């Protein structure tokens, strides 16, 4: 599903942000990527979204080599990947429903389907009752749920979450993690970039550890906890 072969990315002369990284993430997996600031986690997300091009190596997602995707085909490629950020990135001037529907509009979903799918995904993240609220009227945890709903409404096969609990308290962080696990159990591949080791340990999933652009460990379920 996600395959990186000897991928390097250098922004300018000096230490590369990613250095000869090889990874394989199977369909339906739940994977954490952990590491300190500057370890290359965010660069990895950007490469997977084709926001950046690798300096060396190749990346494949859903058996599609990213290097072969033409500029005009990037939007179609991205529709298979949902993405969630630490700062939620919701549109402040639109309510919960509109924020989620926005993702459907952007890909040209007919209104009829939109009216069916948006409430369904809002129910799934537990926000059906707050569909009229604006982002400033709901809590951080709820805002992140809206962001997750927006990422899922187009039914992507992969969900990338970049520090999804970074702005949340412990309780809300757990709620979001449980939601991500639930999404994973429905068949979506989930890749979570985080530095919250408590959560990582408690979730008992595969953990890839990065440092200075290099993968220093890739531990299967439970091993990370034992360490």
């Amino acid at each position: 599903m996600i395959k990186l072969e000897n991928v390097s990315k250098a922004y300018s002369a000096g230490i590369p942000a990613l250095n000869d990284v090889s990874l394989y993430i199977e369909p339906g997996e739940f994977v954490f990527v952990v590491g300190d600031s500057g370890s290359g986690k965010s660069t990895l997300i950007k490469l997977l979204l084709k926001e950046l091009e690798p300096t060396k190596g190749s990346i494949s997602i859903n058996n599609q080599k990213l290097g072969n995707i033409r500029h005009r085909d990037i939007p179609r490629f991205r529709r298979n990947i949902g993405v969630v950020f630490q700062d939620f990135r919701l549109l402040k001037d639109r309510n919960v429903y509109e924020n989620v529907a926005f993702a459907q509009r952007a890909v040209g979903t007919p209104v009829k389907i939109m009216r069916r799918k948006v409430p369904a995904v809002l129910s799934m993240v537990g926000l059906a009752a707050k569909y009229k609220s604006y982002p400033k009227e709901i809590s951080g945890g709820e805002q992140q749920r809206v962001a997750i709903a927006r990422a899922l409404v187009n039914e992507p096969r992969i969900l990338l979450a970049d520090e999804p609990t970074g702005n949340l308290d412990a309780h809300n962080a757990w709620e979001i993690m449980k939601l991500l696990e639930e999404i994973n159990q429905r068949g979506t591949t989930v890749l979570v970039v985080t530095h919250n080791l408590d959560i990582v340990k408690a979730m008992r999933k595969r953990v890839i550890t990065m440092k200075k652009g290099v993968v220093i460990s890739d531990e299967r379920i439970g091993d990370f906890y034992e360490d």
Partner: protein
Amino acid sequence: MRISTFWYTLRQGAKNIWKNKMFSLASIATMSACIFLFGIFYSVVVNFQSVVREVESGVAVTVFFVDGATQEQIDAIGEQIGKRVEVSEKVYVSAEEAWENFKKIYFKGAEDMAQGFAEDNPLANSAHYEVYMNDISMQESLVTFVQSLDGVKEVKSSDMAAHTLTDFNRLIGYVSAGIILILLCVAVFLISNTVTIGIAVRREEIAIMKLIGATDYFVRAPFIVEGILIGLIGSALPLLVLYQMYRRIIVYVGEKFLWLSGMLEFLPVNKVFSTLVPVGLILGVGIGFLGSRLTIRKHLKV
């Protein structure tokens, strides 16, 4: 494009205008000023050109024939002249008619003095063609052509009148083009500024759109709509004002300045505005489209 996407794009374009009210208003005002100036300029120029055309139509080339030219020769010359594209009308004036015309002008009030010439026409060799043109700038080539015809003795023309009118027409053309170009640049620049601000305000939204797989077209379309709407409003308003102004001015000048009526005949309002309205609207929409398109290319890398 789906109908729902079309309406969504239209709504977003209108919302952009509303969100940046002050800048949008400034753009619309400047666009209105530009189209208003253009409209005034256009109205003046077309009226002026109509006057010039009127003057031009009175400028004629006179063709005289060699002594003893037969009527067949004169007819052949007339036929050749009539075939020329620049000729709008040719009038044959016989020697008798020439003398009658001369008498009317120079013996006015003393007709009996001309009686002495009753049997001996002093303008016996003055039969000629008066040739009128639809384009005075082609007078020179016409004269050269007519001079080369068999049986033509002399061709009289007013080079100065032709040159002055041609030069004047050319000057009007250059000045119009120059002013329109300046107005165009100013309007494009202003719309570009408004759209740039719109892009800056919506940078986050654009980034989100890109990440969830919106096409370039979906991201760009609202900004294009914004530019077009500004252009449309900014051109429709001054055209309305100009229409009313022109109508009233014609009536006012007609009533208050009667002495001008012989020299200055205003073109009817419908004649001027049947061209000015579509040109003004196309110009406004075109400038709006161009301004936003150029800005998007520069600032919106999707």
